[in-house]
């Protein structure tokens, strides 16, 4: 079942699936020590301030002594405002990573792919349940219970229960996106906000539509978490662990649409869009070009399929309602009928139709939760995939810009040599060295992100095929069940009809 387009085997002996900063050796050395107490790291999750955006602040200096780039990650200014942007155009963060957990990840990426099928080490179950309304009026919100059952050692307990609200999930996604997306990781997107849906719940309408809305959201949140932990890198992320384990989570205010962060996000998105249009990348790798086209096509196709399935759900619901109303009418008719046997048969018919209406309704839920929601999730995932390709483009642009800058600095130095200004010359030489470093870094980053994307896309494709296969079969089985029930009901009715004399 292997994909025809396997990403080429990753070069070198890098026994980790994570991108490394240039100080691979340093990272491992200090990582090994930090790793002795994974539990400790977890439990100290409570101490991690909301402003920690990147890697674990517990070992900032050891790991990232040589870390280049603009902003110090510990700076207090890096408040929620900046840390939650999905792709901060202003201050790109160095590709730094939490230390790989060698106990789980001592296999090569290639092996990783093959063993994905028998992932007995991937033993984690997450469920989102028991939605509860907290508070009143427009300040009310829903709180969900998140239960994690696992045997993985990175978790402090076998079973943890925490309470989370919707904005907590959004906050988690925000953090993960800003940490990993620019490295080419496909970060599963969180469920979408719904002002209409939530307002109804807040206002306290206990009707069917708000109950359905809450159920839809609960299910979406559960799928979101499961997808997130399925990603080998994200599973280890301290923010994820904190989310799943710690009883108190600082409120992610920056996820609100109209907060300062929200507005900044919108600005960034616009900037990104402009950049996308202006960056003209020389694609040297046909694989990327092909894949991008493929994902564009897939996007269109999935949306169309999704629309068709949504229409199916809608029609089935309608059919269910109409069948119920007919059932009532048939019962009335049966009551009115003065021929006893026919009267009884009509009443039976009414009962059968009532059962059938329930059947239609159940089937429409299956239509929805099995297929429609999955398609919706994948449409959003594909947007994340496309985003990751864009990140690669940005990395390329940065690299090119660095090269241009280096060239300029070299020219400037040459000029200075003629002009014979020794003090300025020294500065120029320093600058050249600086920019040489940046060019090297840019190239490395670009290659790294390309490598990551290949791997991520491979994993994504595999998961996608598997997901769809499983869901299709489940769905067809649900259809079989419905039809079998139909047979049962009608076969029970047949003797009644024949008994009319």
């Amino acid at each position, binding site marked *: 079942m292997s994909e025809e387009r396997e990403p080429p085997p990753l070069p070198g002996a890098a026994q980790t699936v994570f991108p490394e900063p240039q100080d691979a050796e340093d990272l491992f050395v200090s990582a090994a020590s930090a790793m002795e107490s994974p539990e400790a790291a977890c439990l100290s999750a409570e101490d991690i301030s909301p402003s920690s955006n990147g890697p674990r602040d517990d070992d900032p200096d050891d790991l990232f002594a040589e870390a280049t780039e603009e902003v110090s990650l510990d700076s207090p200014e890096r408040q929620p405002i900046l840390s939650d942007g999905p792709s901060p155009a202003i201050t790109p963060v160095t590709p730094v990573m939490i230390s790989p957990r060698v106990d789980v990840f001592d296999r090569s990426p290639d092996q990783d792919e093959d063993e994905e099928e028998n992932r007995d080490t991937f033993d984690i179950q997450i469920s989102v349940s028991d939605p509860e309304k907290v508070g009143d009026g427009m300040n009310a919100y829903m709180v969900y219970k998140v239960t994690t059952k696992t045997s993985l050692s990175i978790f402090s307990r076998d079973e943890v229960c925490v309470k989370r609200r919707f904005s907590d999930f959004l906050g988690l996604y925000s953090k993960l996106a800003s940490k990993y997306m620019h490295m080419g990781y496909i970060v599963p997107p969180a469920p979408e906000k719904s002002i209409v849906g939530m307002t109804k719940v807040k206002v306290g309408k206990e009707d069917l539509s708000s109950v359905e809305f809450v159920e839809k959201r609960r299910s979406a949140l559960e799928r979101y978490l499961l997808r997130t932990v399925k990603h080998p890198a994200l599973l280890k992320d301290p923010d994820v662990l904190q989310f799943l384990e710690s009883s108190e989570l600082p409120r992610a205010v920056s996820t609100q649409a109209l907060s300062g962060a929200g507005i900044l996000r919108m600005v960034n998105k616009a900037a990104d869009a402009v950049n996308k249009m202006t960056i003209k990348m020389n694609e040297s790798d046909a694989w990327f070009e092909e894949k991008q086209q493929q994902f564009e096509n897939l996007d269109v196709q999935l949306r169309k399929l999704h629309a068709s399935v949504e229409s199916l759900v809608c029609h089935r619901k309608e*059919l269910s309602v109409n069948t119920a109303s007919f059932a009532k009418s048939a019962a009335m008719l049966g009551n009115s009928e003065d021929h006893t046997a026919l009267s009884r048969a*009509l009443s039976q*018919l009414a009962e059968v139709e009532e059962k059938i209406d329930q059947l239609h309704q159940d089937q429409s839920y299956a239509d929805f939760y099995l297929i429609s929601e999955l398609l919706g999730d994948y449409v959003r995932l594909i947007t994340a995939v496309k985003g990751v390709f864009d990140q690669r483009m940005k990395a390329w642009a940065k690299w090119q810009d660095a090269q241009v800058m280096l060239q300029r600095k070299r020219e400037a130095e040459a000029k200075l040599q003629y002009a014979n200004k020794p003090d300025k010359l020294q500065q120029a030489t320093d600058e050249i060295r600086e920019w040489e470093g940046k060019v090297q870094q840019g190239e490395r980053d670009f290659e790294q992100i390309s490598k990551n994307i290949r791997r991520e896309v491979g994993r994504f494709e595999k998961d996608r095929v598997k997901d769809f296969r499983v869901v299709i079969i489940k769905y067809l089985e649900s259809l079989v069940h419905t039809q079998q029930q139909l047979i049962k009901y009608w076969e029970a009715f047949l003797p009644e009809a024949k008994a009319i004399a």
Partner: protein
Amino acid sequence: MTSISEDSDKEKMRSVSVDLNNDASLVIDIPDALCERDKVKFTVHTKTTLSSFQKPEFSVPRQHEDFIWLHDTIVETEEYAGFIIPPAPPKPDFEGPREKMHKLGEGESSMTKEEYAKMKQELEAEYLAVFKKTVQVHEVFLQRLSSHPMFRKDRNFQIFLEYDQDLSVRRKNAKEMFGGFFKNMVKSADEVLISGVKEVDEFFEQEKNFLLDYSIKIKDATAKAEKMTRSHKIADDYNHISGALNNTAADNNTAFKKHLEKCAEVFEKLRKVEDRMASDQELKLTELLRYYTRDIQAAKDLLYRRARALADYENSNKALDKARLKGKDVAQAEENQKQCLQKFDKLSESGKKELTSFKARRVVAFRKNLIEMTELEIKHAKNSVSLLQGSIEILKSN
């Protein structure tokens, strides 16, 4: 222009009314019909051993309006006041398929070739279904007449069957004569009169109560059944899904591609089954209810006429008393009263017979249709199950 020819499952089609056409002395059917734009031309074919007809076998073309004319003349014939007059067939209604055709034309650009061809096929099938239904309902009307001992002898009925020229001239004359006045009056007054009259006869009292209530309930049931069968258009969605899956399949690698294509095929087949399920339900259940709504109305009309006769009789009694008081025109008043009583008794007698046989007919028709519908639903559901299970096997092993 669409036409149907001798249909071998016509036996099954002729479902709503039963026990018809088993008298070989007068056999009527509609073997053929043409559809031109809005008008449907039925070919009415008669085989008879009766000497009152000129030939033993003949066919004439008739339009829907001709059937209405025939129905109206029978309604307005005094002698038939004591009979349940078979309800007139409803006007052929191609609104549904026409709307769909319109939508198809509009959406042509947004669909793939295959989808378009499929929808066109569906549209044609729907058109054909409406067509078959309207032929059936016109046929049943004639057969009810031919199997009734009195109606089959009706002069206008014979003209309708035999007259090989256009009936439209006769139709116009009839309209001028009666002007539809009587019919309109019946429609508005029957409820009030029927319920207002004091009923002495136990049988009619029961029938009256039953029919009044039943007609409301069956009208409602028909409407709800129509809504239900109309909304059974899941087949359309399966069609779109199948198309979308095929598109997605085109782009994928081989193993998954086959998987998706198989899936698309499943939905395509399911669509056909769902279609049949919906149309069979419509034919057996909804058409049945529709027909009997009209028939119940015809029964109510009979009750009305009888109630009217009773009212006339009571009036004639009063007139007789008045005449006796005044001492003038007594003989005339007596004669009038006698006639009214006769008419009323005749109506009551034949009315009783008609209503009893009506109930029997109704029960048999419901039984037949409910059984047939149930058997068909079971058959289709079993087909679906075997289709789905077969596909699941293939998909799992892939």
